[in-house]
Each structure stands twice: as C-alpha cells, then as structure tokens.
C-alpha cells in the first residue's frame, strides 16, 4: 500500500511551522494591529489601576475631613478632594472597580444567556426558535435606556437597599443586553449547521450534546469573544448613565457615573472641575479603548462580520 513517507509529512508540516493553531495565528495578526494593541494596553492599565492602585493609597478609608473640602489638585491629593474632603483619585479608582466589575459581570451574564438561547434557537429551530426570538425581538424593539430607567425607578420605588443595587444593576444590564447577542449567535449557528463538517458530524452518529459543545461551540468562540468585548464597553456606558441619573448604583458606593453627578451642580461644574473630569475621562478612555480593541479583535477573529 502506498504510504506518504515521513519526509513528505515533515516537509508539509514544517512549511507551515508545526501546529500553527488558529489561535496563535490570530494573536500574531492582532499584534500587528497597533491601534488594537494600544486599546488593549489602555484597558489593561485601567483594570490594573483600579484593582491594584487603591492598595497604595493612604486615603482608602474615605474618612470625611471637612478641613480638606473641595481642595484643588496638590502633591498630597493628586486629583484634589471632594465636598467631604475625600481624595478624588482614590474615589475614582474605587469607583472604577465597581464600574468595571458591573461591566464585566453583566457582560458575562448577558453573553451566557444570549449565547445559550441563541445556540438553542439556532440549533433546534422550529417552535423553540420562534418563542426565543420573538421574546428577543420584543426586548429589542424597546429602546434600552428608557427600559433601564423604568427598572431603575422601580428599584427606588421599592426601596431596594443600596448595597444590593449594584447586583440588580448587573442583572438589568444583562436583561437588555442578551437579545442582540442571541440574535447574532443564532445567525451564526444557522450558517454553521449548514456547513459540511456538521453533516459529517451527524453521519458519525454523535449525540446532540457532543455536536453542540464539541463541534459548534468552538466555532462560535471567536464571535463570542468579539461580542463580549464590545459588550463590556456598552455595559459600562449604560451603568454610568443610570448611575448619573441616580437610578443605578447609588452613593456611598462610588461609580464613575454617580461621581460625574457633580457636574450637575453649576458651582462644582465651573469651580471644581477635578470632581467630574477624572471620572468622565475614565469612562471615555475605557469605553473607547475597549471598542478599539474589540474592533481589532473582530478584524482578526471574525472578518466576515465587518461592516
């Protein structure tokens, strides 16, 4: 019988460098995209600063110090102090922890719900698909901000303890976040299931579970990574808007959103810009950086989705 000799095999493999997994190839292409790398560096810096930074701050106890009210930036307080004499830099970093956590957690939750429902809808089609997608369509037809406002107002109405609000805000954000995601995942599923290798998987007599999790899910991962990344930015922004209007996470828990609330006050807006510029800039920089990075990821992982 004919045998492909070792040399030919070796030549074939070495030509493309052994085991160039798709991931490694993608990483290499991503690193070539300077803008995306820049976005990633900014995001990483933000995360590091918010989660590690406060450990080095002497002001983490947030002691109220009336003697240091509304002081402008100085060597002692790099970004000045707020109306209660608390260090603004420390507050911004602590707020970042909450904002980033809310963004991440609600992303994880909406990606989980969205991809699970999208996968089920796209794989089983028929009546299951109809039910899931009609609910998603319904949620999509309502603009998400008004919906979030209503939720937020209800929370205040029901006097939900402020400690819990953070978690409920995460939940709210994922409720408005999953439908768009489910729709994208479902579309991808519909096209994947028509691919020849899925027919080959049917022919192998594999169970649904194996086909779904071993064959389809790995093909969805690139798309999921891209949507998940872009989703964090959206979630951070929505949380900020809600908190700014006093409908999201509330004081004393700081978030970037409720810190910019200072800009509502004409005197603070004009006289004490160090109160609202730092949180505002943090939101701006983080969201832009996440989107730049997400777009770069999309170019690499999911070229077909390019608009």
């Amino acid at each position, binding site marked *: *019988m*004919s*045998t*492909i*000799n*070792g040399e030919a*095999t*070796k030549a*074939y*493999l070495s030509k*493309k460098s*052994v*085991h*160039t*997994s*798709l991931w490694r190839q993608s990483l290499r292409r991503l690193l070539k995209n300077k803008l995306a790398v820049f976005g990633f560096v900014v995001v990483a810096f933000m995360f590091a600063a918010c989660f590690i930074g406060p450990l080095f701050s002497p002001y983490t106890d947030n002691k109220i110090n009336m003697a240091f009210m509304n002081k402008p930036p100085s060597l002692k307080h790099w970004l000045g102090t707020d109306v209660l004499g608390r260090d603004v830099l420390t507050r911004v970093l602590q707020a970042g922890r909450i904002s980033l956590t809310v963004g991440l957690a609600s992303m994880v939750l909406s990606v989980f719900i969205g991809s699970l429902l999208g996968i089920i809808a796209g794989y089983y089609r028929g009546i299951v698909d109809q039910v899931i997608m009609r609910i998603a369509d319904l949620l999509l037809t309502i603009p998400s901000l008004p919906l979030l406002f209503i939720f937020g107002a209800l929370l205040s109405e029901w006097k939900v303890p402020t400690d819990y609000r953070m978690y409920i805000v995460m939940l709210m954000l994922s409720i408005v976040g999953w439908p768009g995601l489910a729709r994208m995942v479902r579309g991808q599923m519909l096209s994947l299931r028509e*691919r*020849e*290798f899925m*027919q*080959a*998987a*049917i*022919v*192998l*007599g*594999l*169970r649904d579970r*194996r086909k779904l999790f*071993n*064959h389809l899910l*790995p*093909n969805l*991962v690139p798309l999921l990574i891209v949507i998940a990344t872009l989703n964090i930015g959206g979630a951070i922004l929505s949380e900020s808007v809600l908190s700014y209007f006093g409908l999201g996470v509330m004081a004393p828990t700081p978030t970037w959103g409720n810190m910019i609330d200072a800009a509502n006050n004409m005197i603070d807006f004009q006289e004490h810009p160090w109160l609202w510029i730092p949180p505002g800039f943090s939101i701006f920089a983080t969201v832009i950086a996440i989107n730049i990075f997400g777009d770069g990821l999309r170019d690499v992982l999911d070229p077909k989705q390019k608009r």
Partner: protein
Amino acid sequence: MNSILDIEHLRTHFKTDDGTVRAVDDVSFQVRQGEIVCIVGESGSGKSITAMSVMGLVEGPAGRVVGGNIRFDGEELLKLSRNELRTIRGNEIAMIFQEPMTSLNPVLKIGEQLMEPLIEHRKLNKKAARKRAIELINEVGISRAEQIADSYPHELSGGMLQRIMIAIAISCGPKLLIADEPTTALDVTIQAQILDMLRKFKEESNMSILLITHDLGVVAEMADYVVVMYAGKVVEEGEVVALFENPKHPYTQGLLKSKPIINQRQEELYSIPGQVPNPLELVPSCYFHERCAHCMEICKTTQPALKEVGNQQKVACWLYEEATANV
C-alpha cells in the same frame, strides 16, 4: 451472498417554490456483503440524494423521503427513531464526502475528531481512544501519527485529509461504507492511492462499499456491480464486466463513449449532446429521449420500466421491449 443494503422504490422529493423536484424517483438496488457497488451518472442525476436518504440526511421542511424502503442488514432504516438511527450512523454505516477540506471541523485537532466516534460507539475512554486514533492514522498510511493527531485540518493536504476521513469512517468497523465522490477533489495520483486503500480495507474487513462517482475510470477499477442513474431514476444496472462490454441503454453507451481510451484517440472526445433535464418539468416519458439517438414515439409518452435483459443486467429502455412497444 446476502444483501446488506436493500433499497426498494425509494423516492425523495424536494418541495420548492417552482414545484416538486423528484431528485430520487423510484430507485431500487441492492448492495451485497463484501461488494462494491458504484452509482454513476452525470451531475444532478440524484446520486448524492440517494446516499443522503440512506443516511437520513434529507431532513427539514423542503426535502423528504416520500416513499420506499431502505433495509440495512434486515432492518428498516426509515422506521427507526432518531436515536436508533444515531447508533447505526458512524458505527455500522459510515460515510465519506467529496470535499475532505470542509468535512473536518476546522477548529478541532485531527486526533480529537478521530476519537469521537470511538468514544461514542465503542465506549472507549479518552486514553484508549487516542491510542486507537494513532493506530488508525498509521493504518491509512500516514507516518508521524502522533504529530498529525495534534494538527489542525488546515495544516494537512487534501489527500492526507481524505485519508483521515477514511480512518474516521472505518474506525468503528462499519458493515457499509458510503463514499460520495471521494476522489473527485483530489489529484490523479492521490486518487489512485485513496481507491487502493478503500479496496484494501474492504478486503480486510469484508465490508461493503457504495461508491458514488461520475468517473467511469473509477467504476472500471473498483466496481463489482454498477447502477447507472439518470434524472432520479435507475436506467441500467448490472455486473461491471457485462455492463462495460455490452452496455444496453443509450445513456450508458454514451457515457462509455465519452470516456477517453488510450491508444484509441479520436479527433474529438465524444460527449452526449444536451443536458440532464430539469427534474421539475418532467412528464411521463423516458427522461433521456431528447438526447437519445434512438428516440421513438413511445419514448416521448411512456416511461420504460427496469427489466431484466440477460445475465444479471437490467435496463429501462423501450429498445429492448419492442414486443410490448406497439401500444
């Protein structure tokens, strides 16, 4: 020899906006144990849909098996539940496709894809499945099996991938292997190797092969028995030698004439005039009549039935039914 696959009056139709496409229309034939049966015919004649009907791959709202029986090893496949069918697929009936490049999952390693049917049907644990996978890669003539097992499909050539597909197909020791144009996408030299390998495995394990092809060279090399399909129907079938020596149906004659023969170069390679008719607009008639040099009146109005003519050869053509043709 007993038959392993017995297809009777199989009809598979597609409902489209323009009407019903009778992709497979009253097809019957058998595959016996240890035998290679080839289905030949031009593209669009319903070969793939026949194979997909056997595998239960024609599903969804548009396409449906609307009639007939498919008996595999004495069991009626069309009556089985989804789960019962699943335990037969990949285990007792295996299938390989035309495009090895797209038939493997691009994001899974070769080894993982080889292990799956072993874990599913043979109930092997991961370690044993991996060991068997490596053996299988060696068996299909690829060296450095360990390394190949850890590669992704895009790292291998088409010929190697088709070997892997064969390895996956034979992994559970199937009784029947369905191969739909397994060499069409490959280089000529690789084609021969793949066909040799299929024949070798057939002889070692006494499995049967249903080989679909449009290439009469492949038929001549592989087949024990040939089924010629045209526009969803069997127009002729028979033992390979008899059929090649004495083709009865004008379509089979045309196919054989259009095959290049070395030392007998013609000015121009013969090709059957016209095209396979659109299966939408077929009225009762011999579907080949428009392209047939021997077309008679009856061919335009009545469909000929498949009738035995001589030793193990059947043909559906009015030329061989002149006694009854004067209706």
